[in-house]
């Protein structure tokens, strides 16, 4: 197999295998701890999670920014008769999700108190980390499916075991809903492998091989893509298959909510990119307008429903629906800016929404309520806590200088090329985002505090330490996102090239930037004749997959 030959030499040390193995082993170690020493569970677990986190950082540092392909690849035969192999690798797209997973798990493990049964709690969180790593680095469809399903179990257990009043309902709903989607995906995975195999001679589940082969007929590919897409849009989630999310988020323990928002939702958008655009370029272009429409509906709908929520956690959950809608728009606008922005926004959303869930969790710890109506004037009682909340809120609103803006702006400006009117509508989401967050902030933090509010303690040092990495990321990515962008871009560029090669989509040719000297504000160059238009503005055929020919 050519793929085998190409990569065997490259991976001297199977870093990614260890990345998955460390937290998995950690989970077993923690589970085997004697019951009498369950106080050791979190420290020991955090060590394993942090080791994996450090490894993900090492991965980031030694990642070759110029290489658009998969790096740190490892390929071992697993079930050779069926063409199933253990094939893992990262590119500029998955790299950041791996890093995000690597960093967030140890933080929440250390920073959020489960209150009871720390042993299984820690073990499940480590399982979740291992499974998420696996899902993000899998380059074999079968392996991916296994990982994609594995992560459901720990999350189900975390919600059901450590959640709030309605946890069983929420956990079951979460599990069944996601399973329903992935059931169809399994059928599609088998179909893709079998139908691409040329009558069974060359059966493989290898993603790279299948993507290069493009052996399916147009119709088959479209059906298969639809099945994949359904599984992923449930995970994202996209309206109207989103209602498991508010329940799961609200009932999950804080750590669960944070990982769910920061990592698990990204499995959906990442899946759309890796297994949608990459495996089914033509079908992605075909179904693009539908998905973009759903994404934009999510932006507006999620924001409107968020505005009316009475529970802070539900509000944040619906804001997630809106934010993830932006990402879906970006992915299916097929421009380097929009997809690059989409990938970046996956990280940004993880930071800002993750931090929001942590903050809401801290409020709950203090007041045993998340009801907006039961809180008032907290800024007077806890000014530092309010300041941190404000920064995270502004990041979520998308104020420039903070990370949320960068992703949102890139998504929108890139999408404007090919999905003009969708973008114009989606951009109104920024007004609504300000509305629901500021209104909630006003009701919770402003106003005259009651005696109970005044007794609310301000932020502790431990909480500051938990939030500090989030705040650092929020500010850093807002000011200097270049290190991420320059690693994301080559992979995205290659992916778009792949789509162009296998469909009739062509990325818009950007109007050639006018080159002038910087010392030049020259009005003499200026020709105001309106008849001299150089760019086609007349054909507003926005939104079709051919894009706007500029």
């Amino acid at each position, binding site marked *: 197999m050519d793929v085998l030959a190409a990569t065997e030499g490259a991976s001297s040390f199977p870093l990614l295998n260890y990345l998955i193995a460390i937290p998995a082993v950690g989970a077993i170690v923690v589970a085997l701890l004697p019951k009498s020493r369950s106080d050791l569970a979190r420290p020991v677990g955090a060590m394993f999670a942090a080791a994996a986190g450090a490894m993900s950082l090492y991965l980031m540092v030694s990642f070759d920014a110029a290489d658009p392909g998969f790096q740190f690849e490892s390929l071992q035969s697993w079930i050779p008769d069926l063409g199933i192999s253990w094939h893992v690798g990262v590119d500029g797209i998955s790299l950041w999700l791996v890093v995000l997973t690597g960093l967030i798990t140890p933080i929440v493990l250390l920073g959020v108190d489960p209150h009871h049964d720390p042993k299984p709690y820690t073990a499940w969180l480590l399982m979740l980390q291992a499974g998420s790593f696996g899902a993000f680095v899998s380059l074999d469809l079968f392996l991916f499916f296994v990982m994609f399903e594995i992560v459901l179990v720990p999350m189900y257990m975390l919600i059901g075991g450590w959640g709030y009043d309605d946890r069983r309902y929420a956990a079951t709903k979460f599990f069944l809903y996601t399973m329903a989607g992935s059931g169809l995906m399994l059928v599609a995975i088998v179909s893709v492998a079998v139908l691409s195999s040329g009558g069974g001679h060359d059966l493989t589940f290898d993603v790279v091989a299948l993507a290069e082969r493009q052996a399916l007929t147009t119709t088959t590919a479209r059906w298969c893509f639809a099945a994949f897409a359904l599984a992923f849009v449930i995970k994202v989630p996209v309206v109207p298959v989103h209602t498991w999310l508010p329940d799961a988020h609200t009932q999950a323990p804080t750590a669960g909510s944070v990982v769910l928002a920061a990592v698990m939702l990204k499995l959906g958008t990442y899946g759309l990119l890796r297994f949608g655009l990459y495996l089914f370029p033509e079908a992605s272009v075909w179904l693009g307008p539908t998905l973009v429409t759903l994404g934009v509906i999510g932006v507006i709908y999620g924001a409107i429903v968020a505005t009316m929520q009475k529970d802070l956690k539900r509000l944040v959950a619906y804001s997630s629906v809106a934010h993830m809608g932006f990402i879906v728009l970006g992915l299916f606008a097929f421009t380097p800016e929009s997809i690059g922005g989409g990938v970046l926004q996956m990280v940004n959303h993880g930071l800002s929404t993750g931090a929001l869930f942590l903050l809401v969790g801290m409020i709950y710890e203090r007041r045993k309520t998340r009801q907006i109506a039961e809180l008032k004037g907290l800024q007077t009682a806890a000014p530092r806590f309010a300041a941190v909340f404000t920064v995270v809120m502004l990041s979520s609103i998308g104020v420039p200088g903070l990370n949320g803006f960068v992703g949102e702006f890139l998504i929108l400006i890139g999408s404007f090329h090919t999905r003009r009117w969708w973008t114009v509508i989606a951009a109104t989401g920024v007004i609504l985002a300000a*509305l629901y967050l500021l209104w909630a902030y006003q009701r919770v933090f402003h106003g005259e505090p009651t005696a109970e509010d005044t007794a609310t303690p301000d932020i502790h040092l431990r909480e500051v330490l938990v939030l500090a990495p989030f705040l650092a990321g929020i500010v850093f990515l807002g000011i200097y996102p*270049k290190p991420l962008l320059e690693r994301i871009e080559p992979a995205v560029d290659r992916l778009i090239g792949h789509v162009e090669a296998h469909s009739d989509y062509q990325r818009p040719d950007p109007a050639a930037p006018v080159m002038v000297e910087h010392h030049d504000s020259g009005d003499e160059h*200026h020709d105001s004749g309106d008849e001299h238009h150089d760019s086609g503005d007349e054909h507003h055929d926005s939104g079709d997959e051919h894009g706007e020919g500029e």
Partner: protein
Amino acid sequence: MLELVWLIPALPLLGFVALLIGGRRLGEPRAGWLATAASAGSFGATLVVFAGLLGLDAHGDRAFTQVLFEWLPVGSLEVEAGFLVDSLSITMGLFVTGVGTLIHLYSIGYMHGDPRFSKFFVYLNLFLFSMLMLVFGNNLVVTFLGWEGVGACSYFLISFWHTRDSAATAGKKAFVTNRVGDWGFMVATFLIWTTLGTVTYTEIAASPAMAATTGTAVSLLLLVAAAGKSAQLPLYVWLPDAMEGPTPVSAMVHAATMVTSGVYLLVRMNSVLTDDALLVIAIVGAATALFAALCAVAQHDIKKVLAYSTVSQLGYMFLAIGSGAYVAAIFHMVTHAFFKGLLFLGSGSVIHGMHDEQDMRKMGALRALMPITGLTFIVGWLAIAGVPPFSGFWSKDEILLAAWEQPDIGWLLWLVGLVTALLTAYYMSRQVFLVFFGQQRWDDGVHPHESSWTMTLPLVLLAGASIAGGVINLPLVSDWLFLEHFLEPIFAHPHHFTSGTATKVTLAVIAVGAGAVGIGFAVMVWLKGRVSSERLEPTFLENAMYVDATFARVAGGPGTRAFQATADTDATVVDGAVNGVGWLVQRFGELIRPAQSGLLRNYAIGVAIGAVGLIVWFVTRVAM
């Protein structure tokens, strides 16, 4: 010297960071002095950069770009974190840092005794930083950074006394309304980038013109953006409410600097504005000017008068832009910053001296008790009323002339501007007479007193600027048009007045006459009491023609109901469907549960029936 431009925003940023970390420890008044020093340093840096710019050849292109780093490099998009120094940005920079420093100084006195004294200066420095990013950014996205930054700071500052519900609500309203404008800014940026392939100002200015429809679309989107920030119809509604903030905030953010951002943006983007769009801008400006002046006539709150007055004066600037007279817009922006900053600070001094009383009906005869405040306020009044030779006369005169010279409806625009001038002279005279002249009307126990020197010094300096500010652009001799000659290179279509001297003088005389009528009428009513003031403060105008109230009613009524209906639909229909499926599966399961009886005999019968059925099926198929 030009290389020091980064220092201009960096100093307030440094002040912000320092105060954020150690502000509370520094305490009062040192935190205030630190912030003021940062602002003054920024002003000094601007002066140095200004000198550097003057050192460049006046006949070449006087511009300097400094790029710090690549901010958003993806695909074909290249956004730098960079600064552009040219005549426009340096003009803005000078008065923003200059007036800003005075207001910082003033705030030390005004915020005296506030438990969150240092926090106030945290916001003030952050605001100044954002404003300078807005002004000096070398591309639309960096300007947008400042644009949103000043919006956020405005939110913090309006709701500074956040335990008051009205202040908290006003802050939120300002932010959300501004976001409507920001939407316009963003979409305009997208359209410019996809059409011209750049977001950098110098490259946009050098680009060939866009197609007419695109150009107009871009212009109108920029107008939406500008109308949000600069409080034009119909997005002005947040500004009168913004008076909930401390008075220095009203002076700095909501009179002198932030609200002029929209004017700056339109002037900066002058090369893309189409004629159709300019006409719309002129109409919006004229309508806003008149509307707000009418509202100002009937206000009782000392700051509300000034708030509507600000909206009205901003309308003048939009009228100037719409008439193509960009220099007049900038000229008026500068003089307005002086006299409106002065008037707001003066009103703050009055409020301070009156122990937080803002109702003008409870003031009167304060001139003797607050001599410096009174005298400087009178200077501001004369300047805004267009009395020659005060600064406001010169700048307003240019706008009216430019409007007059417009084709077709120029006379109408001019007439609206003239009526506005009359109303301005009237409502400002009313304010001065109610506050500083006439009878004492304050409650017992109030002892009005003059403010401390940190507050009166800025008043005196701004009064000086309000008197003499006109010298930067005197139309008497062509050589004295410093501002016009300085700014001219940045315009795609430099504006030239076509009227002869006779017309100019006639129009000026009429304008002065209108001002005199306004002042004279106010004297009769509010000073001498010869004319009854009844019916001169109609409720309709006091409530600003119910525009805001209507918005509020729609948002609070049908708007909220529609949102609630959506949320209810989500809970019942969308989620209901999901639970419905779950329910169906359960029911179906119960239905077929008897089949799993565990009785072997039943299963055997089932198998037998199935087998027979299969055989029958095969036989019949083969037979056919």
